[in-house]
């Protein structure tokens, strides 16, 4: 079998479509077995799921903070405080700087893309 990415994505979505209540980990088992995936790939899937769960958890945290009347930047400060608990002031500053620089970079690249879309 010489599958393409599209074949694999289609197959994965078909399993989900036909079994909407299937546990996502079961779906992973079915698909990794079908495509004879390596142990490294299975570990990457687990780690990627953990990352997606983290994004989801933080999305809910931000939504809850908004309901309590906090702004996005106030929520950011709270999160930086949480993740740097026990760190020195220099370490806190480094994390805050990295987060803000990264966000700035992301948002600026969105502006560039918007410029391209508008051309």
């Amino acid at each position: 079998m010489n599958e393409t990415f599209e074949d694999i994505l289609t197959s994965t979505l078909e399993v989900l479509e036909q079994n909407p209540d299937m546990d996502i980990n079961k779906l992973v088992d079915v698909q990794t077995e079908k495509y004879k995936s390596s142990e490294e790939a299975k570990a990457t899937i687990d780690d990627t799921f953990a990352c997606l769960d983290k994004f989801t958890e933080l999305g809910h945290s931000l939504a809850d903070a908004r309901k309590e009347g906090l702004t996005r930047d106030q929520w950011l400060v709270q999160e930086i405080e949480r993740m740097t608990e026990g760190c020195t002031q220099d370490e806190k500053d480094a994390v805050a700087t990295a987060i803000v620089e990264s966000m700035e970079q992301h948002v600026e690249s969105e502006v560039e893309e918007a410029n391209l879309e508008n051309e």
Partner: protein
Amino acid sequence: MDIIKFAKENYGDFVKRANPAMNKMTALQTLLSGKELSNEEVPLIKEFKVVKDFLELPMGDKKEVVLKKAFATAVTIAKDKGVLPFEVNSSEQIASLVDDGLTRMKVAYQTATGKMDAYQAVDALVDRVATRVVGIADRVIEKGVPFVVDKLCIAMSKHPYTAALVPFVKASEKYIAPVAKAAVRAGVAVVAKAAKPILKKAVDTVKAVGKKILSWLNA
């Protein structure tokens, strides 16, 4: 920009890279260029209820993550088999690519269908950027990476997966029905038109927030 020009400039490059799937790609390209699909091409365009449901769900709904995980599974399996038509190098990049790509598609769809206005759309995109950046920083810190700004920036940077984003979104588009697809494309145009001034303001805000955060932390 008209749709044919858009298809040629944006989709053509992906088609070249996704050579093995050329027939299906040709069908989608037909659709993108606004032409009617032939009888042979129609079955090549997949339409999934799970994808449509994802587009319809409110932003941030708990069920969203299921589809994101399904896409992430397919991306990782394809990478393992060496057939992924774009490059991603870590769990964080795969998660960011899937989260960003599917969120963009959903925001565009919800904007075109009147579920959110352009301002809400841009705000939702910036919210997702914030949660991804904080999420990755959190994981990097948990993994014990030293507090070096450059390392954090590299881990969180959009650049490692930017090149993959366009082909990923284009590949994902074919899994939605033509009507929803048209809505997504219309939404992209609406968001893009409104985004420039709003995002410019967002950049200034983020810069101001950076100074504020540092002063709060130092207080």
